[in-house]
């Protein structure tokens, strides 16, 4: 027979166990946050020494002390800008169709939804293979800014669609129905009532998706972004390099000096990402709970 333990001893034990596990769960979070801190400090320590105005304005070079990131910085802006122009209209269009027009019982609606859910889980490098085959080779666009932007657009399209749908869903139906009841056509209701109210949500989702695209290297290797160029892109049919590509190129060299400029490149990229994310957060906070 097991010894009977009094209620109070048991309670003490249960509460102790509760405290112990509370501490364990908390430490998992602390570990995660510490990892983030260590990562940032490590990158800063290695990279800050090489980060100056010359680093931003110079061309890449085989001599690390003279190397800069200007073509990669401009290449990233070109590609991400073009990606935004392509992916955001297509994403919003799809979201409007799914949320407003589509018959929610039709096979097309169901197929589209399953398709979007699946696409979101496809590894980014697979999009690179698609881009290589379809854009670079089949459509003969070549390894250009345009091919890179088209590939990235397909990659982030599911994210933009999903966040746009959420933003459109959040528009109260009383308002859209009010507009429709006044005899306004469906399309005019969308452009005049739904979209203006959904824009902050759509913008937040799109900016976050674009910031994800900004850090992608894997698909861009497939579609022929190069690690090393010494000219600046000036049209969408130019060859290009990107920040993550240049960082990858430098990281894979054995010399320590290249690791340092890779870290400096990472700092620039993280600052860019932080700025875009901040923009998204500001838009979200400024417009939250505007309509209740």
């Amino acid at each position, binding site marked *: 027979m097991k010894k009977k333990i009094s209620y109070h001893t048991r309670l003490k034990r249960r509460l102790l166990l509760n405290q112990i596990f509370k501490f364990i769960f908390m430490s998992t979070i602390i570990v995660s946050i510490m990892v983030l801190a260590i990562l940032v400090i490590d990158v800063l320590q290695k990279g800050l020494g090489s980060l100056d105005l010359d680093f931003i304005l110079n061309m890449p070079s085989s001599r690390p002390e003279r190397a800069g990131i200007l073509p990669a910085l401009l290449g990233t802006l070109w590609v991400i800008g073009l990606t935004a122009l392509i992916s955001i209209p297509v994403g919003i269009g799809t979201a409007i169709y799914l949320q407003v027009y589509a018959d929610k019982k039709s096979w097309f609606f169901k197929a589209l939804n399953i398709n979007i859910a699946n696409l979101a889980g496809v590894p980014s490098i*697979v999009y690179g293979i698609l881009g290589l085959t379809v854009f670079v080779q089949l459509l003969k666009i070549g390894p250009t800014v345009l091919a890179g932007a088209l590939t990235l657009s397909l990659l982030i*399209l599911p994210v933009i669609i999903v966040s746009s749908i959420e933003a459109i869903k959040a528009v109260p139906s009383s308002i859209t129905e009010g507009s429709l009841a006044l005899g306004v056509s469906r399309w005019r209701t969308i452009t005049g009532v739904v979209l203006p109210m959904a824009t902050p949500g759509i913008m937040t989702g799109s900016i976050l998706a674009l910031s994800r695209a900004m850090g992608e290297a894997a698909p861009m290797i497939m579609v022929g972004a190069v690690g090393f160029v010494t000219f600046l892109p000036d049209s969408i049919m130019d060859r290009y390099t990107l920040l993550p590509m240049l960082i990858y190129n430098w990281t894979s060299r054995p010399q320590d000096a290249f690791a340092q400029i890779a870290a400096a490149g990472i700092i620039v990229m993280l600052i860019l990402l932080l700025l875009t994310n901040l923009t998204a957060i500001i838009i979200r906070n400024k417009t939250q709970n505007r309509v209740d």
Partner: protein
Amino acid sequence: MTKKKKRWLEEKSIEWVLIMVSVISILTTVGIVMTLFYESYEFFTVVSIKEFFTTLRWAPVFDPPSFGVLPLLSGTFLIAFLSSFISLPLGLGSAIYLSEFASKKARKIIKPILELLAGIPSIVYGFFALTFITPIIRSVLPDTSIYNALSASIAVGIMTLPMVASLSEDAMMAVPDSIRQGAYALGSTKLEVAIHVIVPAAFSGIGASFMLAISRAVGETMIVAIAAGQTPTFTLNPLESVQTMTGFMVNMALGDIQQGSIEFKTVFVVGALLFLVTLVMNFIAKFVIQKNREVY
């Protein structure tokens, strides 16, 4: 009458434009499947499926070439498996703390930090693995090669951790508060509520988050391309250099290969395998696990 007709025409044409735009996402899937499987079909006219799946040597650019994909598969799953020792416990622990223990204020501060961790590009984790994690491993275990599976696994684990944390937390927050309060009313401690009530009730969502994190680890590219090395080895030793499916594809794309050659086709056949593996895992996560969830 004409005005009405004009408006009808406008509505209809807009609807058609929107359908066209929506079709792009379906065409993406069709395009992926067709490119991958067309080239794979061509590949299998030269190399037998049996050789592909049973040979233990992957050396497509060597002479004589060998097309056994098992080393790439073992490398991929070794890293995905090891990374789960970091991402799953830390992710689930963070989720339980956030959902059951943390105050509202603490949650408001911690969640954005986890989001930041999730927003860091994988190339940065790759750099971190090679220049920070690997030297530490090598100072403890000096026989470790510079490129090794363990370092990459740790970085992949850190990268997928926020995903487990946020999806599991969503699942736990979705458990109705009445159930939680009921358990408290019976005198349970927070720990007992979390372990015996909330986690079982959210089990489908937590399971799905685990599956999705491992699928992400399988498809992760830059970390393994930088830190795990480029030697396809059929090994379970995490201190050796391995090559994953994604690492192989990057390596080939950076090299100089003839379009249409058999080496070129290996990229597609490995891509097709990667696509299928992640598709099955995502499918299990989304449709099998999620479908069987408790509905309140």
